[in-house]
């Protein structure tokens, strides 16, 4: 391997494993798995690195997801489109909605052809509208193995490698052995998921915005970062943020008064700012209870273990922050899932989902659907890009471009990542800062986060395995600044962006906000996108 010694940081490391690939996929949730499968099917040599374990990591594995599986019957497709469009607040696009639904239909059927055990309904037919996370991801892992994809588990990427103006691989660490790794690649797919800021929402603690940081370091453009105000209800003590069950719930305040309101999520959020809120799932019929028990057993793990019957006993609830996981914002991409940086592609929650979901990712399974379609497209395009480069790519002179947390610009100091993370969380988790936003609040938060960025860029550095937390910390600061800087520029309320100073939707702002930058964050409206075409339907 010629190239790795070009990287001074890695020359010093005790051991480096160096690999070569046509396509390197970072992240082993559904979007990364689909990207890797598709690239391999195109004949690419594929390496996939995951921070945790492909099969258990990421939001899908732990949670289970609903997904949109609609046959190509014009009336059914029109209804599916309308459901999405109704929640998109004029930020989505008709053509994208249609093609995402179509691609997912085809690929879920392929999954069935490969032998995936979709559940059967009582009438004996196959039901393909939900994915049981552990089954789905374990199946995809086996399929990847069969396709010859090299999987690096427990191997967080730490930075991208760049050569001749293109992204040319990534480097990271095996956090169990401590060994460093580097993969030279013709193209890289970022499928690192969203960012939930270590809120402990189900399955999200590996999702710290690492891909956002890596891409920002490469100069990439983001879109829709203000669509990041998503919280989900869970029992106050539990991680299980599965909001669907609360459809059959009654919420009450400390005195037992029933909380009512047109927008229940906002009512609960407002009440939680003032004091405790309780719920009981008293509207679930025996049949619905059966659906929950036999379909989503993870709902009951905390209740059963706590000794609470959620259908008859009231329990305290909270809203846990899910950030961009069930938010929307991420890397701006074209219709082939290419980012603005050559050689860099994005899929799943790492990419902006505005084309499909607009201003709110809502219910009904759009995110899981997006993960399939965008994964397939990113894998396809990345493989084609690598093929055009040919084997020559590995002889390019590559360098790592990681900054904050990896290569401090000043004297490295012993900064405590625990304290920095707590300081980030103080800005992004509170409901009165991020569920309900305000000009004043956003400005103050952004000021504090800018300060954290400056200090950590100058002095934060991890050694050994703590390098992972150092980079995660930098990634969370970078992500939160893009979110809040974008939110400040959207002077209205729309979808999951709720602005106290501008409580209504302003039709003149039916356009997207692009953003980017590291030391200096920029935000500007996307040129010429007043997304009105689709309204006609």
């Amino acid at each position, binding site marked *: 391997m010629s190239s790795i010694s070009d990287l001074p940081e890695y020359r010093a490391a005790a051991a480096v494993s160096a690999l070569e690939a046509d396509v390197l996929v970072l992240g082993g949730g559904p979007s990364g798995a689909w990207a890797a499968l598709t690239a391999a099917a195109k004949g690419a040599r594929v390496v996939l690195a995951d921070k945790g374990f492909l099969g*258990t*990591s990421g939001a899908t*594995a732990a949670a289970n997801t609903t997904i949109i599986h609609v046959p190509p019957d014009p009336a059914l497709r029109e209804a599916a489109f309308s459901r999405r469009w109704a929640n998109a607040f004029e930020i989505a696009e008709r053509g994208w909605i249609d093609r995402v639904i179509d691609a997912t239909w085809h690929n879920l059927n392929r999954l069935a052809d490969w032998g995936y*055990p979709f*559940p059967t309904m009582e009438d004996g037919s196959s039901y393909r*509208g939900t994915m049981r996370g552990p089954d789905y991801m374990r199946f995809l892992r086996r399929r990847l193995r069969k396709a010859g994809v090299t999987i690096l588990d427990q191997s967080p990427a730490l930075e991208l490698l760049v050569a001749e103006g293109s992204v040319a691989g990534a480097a990271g660490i095996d956090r*169990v052995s401590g060994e460093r790794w580097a993969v030279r690649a013709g193209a890289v797919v970022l499928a690192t998921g969203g960012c939930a800021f270590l809120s402990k929402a189900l399955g999200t603690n590996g999702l710290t915005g690492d891909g956002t940081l890596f891409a920002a370091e490469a100069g990439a453009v983001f879109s829709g970062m203000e669509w990041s105000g998503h919280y989900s209800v869970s029992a106050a*003590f539990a991680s299980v943020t599965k909001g669907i069950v609360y459809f059959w719930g009654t919420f009450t305040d400390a005195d037992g008064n029933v909380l009512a309101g047109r927008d229940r999520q906002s009512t609960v959020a407002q009440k939680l700012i003032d004091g405790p809120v309780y719920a009981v799932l008293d509207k679930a019929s025996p049949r619905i209870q*059966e659906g929950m028990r036999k379909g989503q057993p993870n709902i009951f*793990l905390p209740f059963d273990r706590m000794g609470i019957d959620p259908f008859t006993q009231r329990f305290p609830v909270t809203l846990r922050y899910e950030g961009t996981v069930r938010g929307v914002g991420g890397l701006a991409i074209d219709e082939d899932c290419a980012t603005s940086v050559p050689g860099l592609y994005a899929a799943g929650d790492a990419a902006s989902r505005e084309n499909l979901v607009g201003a709110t990712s809502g219910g009904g399974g759009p995110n899981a659907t997006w993960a399939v379609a965008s994964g397939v497209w990113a894998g396809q395009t990345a493989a084609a890009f690598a093929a055009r480069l040919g084997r020559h790519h590995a002889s390019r002179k590559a360098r790592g471009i990681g900054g904050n947390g990896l290569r401090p610009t000043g004297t490295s100091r012993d900064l405590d990542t625990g304290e920095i993370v707590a300081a980030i969380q103080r800005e992004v988790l509170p409901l009165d800062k991020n569920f309900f936003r305000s000009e004043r609040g956003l400005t103050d938060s952004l000021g504090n986060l800018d300060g954290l960025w400056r200090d950590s860029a100058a002095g934060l550095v991890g050694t050994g395995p703590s390098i992972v937390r150092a980079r995660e910390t930098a990634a969370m600061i970078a992500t939160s600044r893009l979110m809040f800087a974008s939110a400040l520029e959207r002077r209205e309320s729309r979808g999951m962006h709720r602005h106290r100073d501008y409580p209504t939707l302003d039709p003149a702002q039916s356009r997207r906000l692009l953003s980017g930058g590291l030391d200096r964050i920029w935000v500007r409206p996307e040129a010429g996108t007043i997304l009105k075409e689709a309204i006609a339907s």
Partner: protein
Amino acid sequence: MIELVSAERCTGCNICVSVCPTNVFDAVEDSPPVIARQGDCQTCFMCELYCPVDALYVAHDANLAVAVDELALEDTKVLGSYRKAIGWTADSRPRRASDRSYLLLKPH
């Protein structure tokens, strides 16, 4: 959070060390793994699914450590209950096909 690696049941296969998404366990030679970074546990219950002998127990609380009594857990048959519920044991396999989630998703 994860509260128990049962020395009684554990075979030392270290699968949990490999599969935990947040790297909570450390392998120990000739012994069961240790819960080395409990504060990093995201209460996802994945380790319970992958432990072949139901030696792990993840308690309900995502924020605070909870004292658990292994004998009591044995008595209530909670060890391995999630693995059974999703059909990941030989005797519970049919439960996979009878996922009734669609009852929640059909128009209501």
